[in-house]
């Protein structure tokens, strides 16, 4: 399966600032996703990162708060903007193994974000 590198692995940020998380894959992938995991909770899909077009956001997530870039088939970024303590979570990028929804999903190591 693809090797997914995510950075930073963790960060502590001040309220009101923004953090950009990078996700690099060692092969070209069609489908890349960003998830959020709040403390003690399950994973929630933020958006699907589409190469060459705007990301597709899930209900409850908006582009102004979580802008996503996907400049090519191996790289994506997620920015958490104007952060508040409620944004403290693990953020994970993931890819579908064979470029289809109906295929195994693999994750990067995640970014553990704490907002003070």
């Amino acid at each position, binding site marked *: 399966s693809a090797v997914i590198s995510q950075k930073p692995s963790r960060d502590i940020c001040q309220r009101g600032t923004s953090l950009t998380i990078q996700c690099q894959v060692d092969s070209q992938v069609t489908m890349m996703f960003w998830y959020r995991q709040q403390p003690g909770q399950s*994973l929630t899909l933020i958006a699907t990162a589409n190469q060459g077009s705007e990301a597709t956001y899930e209900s409850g997530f908006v582009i102004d708060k979580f802008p996503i870039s996907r400049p090519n088939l191996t790289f994506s970024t997620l920015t958490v903007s104007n952060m508040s303590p409620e944004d403290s979570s693990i953020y994970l990028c993931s890819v579908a193994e064979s470029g289809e929804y109906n*295929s195994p999903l693999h994750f990067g190591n995640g970014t553990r974000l704490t907002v003070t």
Partner: protein
Amino acid sequence: GIQVEQSPPDLILQEGANSTLRCNFSDSVNNLQWFHQNPWGQLINLFYIPSGTKQNGRLSATTVATERYSLLYISSSQTTDSGVYFCAVLSGATNKLIFGTGTLLAVQP
């Protein structure tokens, strides 16, 4: 939308014991996957199992799609099995992967 419930929510085992984790889902699905999240937060895909039974070492999984459940078996548990186990289902209606509530497993030496 589709609901995905896992049981038990928490489980404590002694090293060497066996366990069964369950995943129930409320609607038909296109696939089901099991993941292990270790205490450092890393998520590993254990099984892609839309139906039938698969085995990988001490772990095996069975999905009975017609009855809307899946089981994950862990045999001869080790401390490294500790963490959270998630099942996730692909909704046929939305093509979105929906994660279950998770089972927190602690294996004690």
